[in-house]
């Protein structure tokens, strides 16, 4: 019995794909399983393979141990405020850099590009000292404000505005529209897609941010999700099922965003390097 080579090839390919996909997906499945079992059941041999009935009690435990709903709201609030504010600042600066000439424009552009090249960890120590001096330690603004000027966002928006025809801005001006009004009534609506893509990325990176919030936030009522999860790991008596449940819930918003905005995702990943 001889096999058609193309059939053989396809079965090998499919096998590889299935194995790879299983490796990718199994931890997610296990998260759901672990989050719905009690601690004892989790490390029992044989381990559970299907979701159990401890979901609600695990949520209650998580709520009483770290005030999980508050933590998630903190994360959400910080991410939303940061996304909106840095998006506005990026759009404005991108527009200014693309369409105006002013003294110091070249310098600012150079600064934006420099920021992109320098890893932010270089700023950890001096920023920490600045926050201490300002008395901002353990405040939301300490997490949000230092990174509001987002070089990646400014660069992206500048690229978007460079393609915007000057004639339209000009004719708006002739019609008596001021610069600021022209900007938000005529120019901004056109770059909505780029703004949307930027917002998705900004939100996700802020949701993931760990090192800086870890340094800045001291009290549990201000913790963001990653910081709270980390504090759960370090204890002597670790509530593993609660920990996994928290991890799962903290990941859910990112997964939702991904499912809703898949298209922007893949094209945004490349930052326009390749037309995807």
């Amino acid at each position, binding site marked *: 019995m001889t096999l058609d080579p193309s059939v053989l090839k396809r079965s090998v390919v499919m096998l590889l794909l299935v194995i790879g996909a299983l490796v990718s997906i199994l931890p997610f499945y296990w*998260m759901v399983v672990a989050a719905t079992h009690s601690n004892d059941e989790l490390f029992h041999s044989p381990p559970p393979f299907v979701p159990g009935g401890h979901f609600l009690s695990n949520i209650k435990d998580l709520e009483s141990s770290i005030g999980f709903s508050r933590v998630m709201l903190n994360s959400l609030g910080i991410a939303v405020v940061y996304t909106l504010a840095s998006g506005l600042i990026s759009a404005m600066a991108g527009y200014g850099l693309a369409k105006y000439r002013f003294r110091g424009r070249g310098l600012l552009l150079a600064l934006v590009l420099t920021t992109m090249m320098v*890893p932010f960890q270089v700023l950890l120590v001096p920023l920490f000292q600045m926050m201490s001096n300002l008395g901002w330690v353990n405040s939301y603004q300490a997490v949000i404000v230092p990174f509001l000027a987002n070089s990646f966002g400014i660069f992206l928006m500048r690229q978007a505005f460079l393609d915007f025809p000057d004639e339209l801005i000009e004719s708006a001006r002739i019609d008596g529209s001021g610069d600021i009004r022209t900007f938000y009534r005529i120019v901004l609506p056109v770059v909505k897609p780029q703004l949307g893509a930027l917002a998705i990325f900004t939100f996700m990176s802020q949701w993931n941010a760990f090192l800086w919030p870890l340094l800045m936030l001291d009290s549990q009522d201000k913790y963001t999700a990653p910081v709270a999860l980390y504090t759960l790991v370090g204890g002597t008596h670790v509530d593993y099922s609660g920990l996994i449940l928290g991890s799962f819930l903290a990941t859910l918003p990112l997964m939702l965003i991904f499912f809703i905005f*898949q298209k922007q995702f893949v094209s945004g990943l490349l930052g326009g390097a390749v037309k995807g």
Partner: protein
Amino acid sequence: MAIPTHPASGPAPAERPPEIHTAAQAPPPRSPLPPSPLPPSATRLRAAGRTRRRPRVVHWAFAGPAAALFVVFFAYPLGASLYQSFTNDDGGTQTWAGLAQYRRMLHDPVFWKSLWNTGLILVFQVPLMICIALVLACVLNQSWLRFKGTWRIAFFLPSVTMLVAYAVVFRVLLKTDGGMVNQALGWFGVSPVDWLNNPVWARVSLIGTITWRWTGYNAVILLAGLQSIPREQYEAAAIDGAGAVTTFRKVVVPQLRPVILFCSITSTIGTLQLFDENFVLTKGGPDNATMTPVLYLYKVGFDQMDFSYASAIAWAVVLIIGVLSVIQFRFFGQSDRAASTARSERRRG
């Protein structure tokens, strides 16, 4: 000869190909349109010449907030950390110390170990991950494959998990007693592995964890690159009698160069900035086997409160990232776009 016409001034005279006027030929008649009512500067928004009606302030107003934020929260701290790296930190007061911190770094076994660990990841994990991702991308690009979108989601999903959350999950999965990984190994008669407490296995765990998260992400990027290769090129290769391997080597790889460069630069930068994963998994242990420069910077700066030395370590990281990026550029050829976006992504790829 020709009158300047303004794009914004309504219908412009019809474009004509330039004509050579000989004596016999009359010059073309002038356009019957009235001259543009606009001052010549009106169309030159980007020109420096300003009309009086618009104060300069507005031009600054757009970029002003960003500029102010950059000066306060980037330029100033950048200078401050550079200065601090040349000082000695005695309980909050700094004294000039020249290159003392950098000399100390060169003789610091923990710092070298953190670089060594980073090097191991760069040499083993990054190429391995990009190769797997490339294979995956090629497979996902097969024309006969169905449910492409679903496969793509399955492979991409790990990279949308929260960084700390996925590290936490792997920490629990890799628990020595009763962790799922050891239990699964037990079914095959393998005795439990001390994943996170043995220097060798801890490195393996860290590499495995990072690979799980980022392989699909890179595969999706490479797939986008593959899809931008015109079909004709494959067909031409097939007509020339090239097999799958030759096609891959001669068509796919050269075309994907910029994308591969993008992936390898983002991965390199991400590796050098590795913090979340090893901090959550092992805190840099056992015996600094998973220590990385950024985690070391964190420990020196915020556990030992030695800000000067921490700043010096930070600048070493900057330098290394710069050097490695340049080397990769040389290696893969130039691609400005890839690099600028790669750097700006600031994310482990």
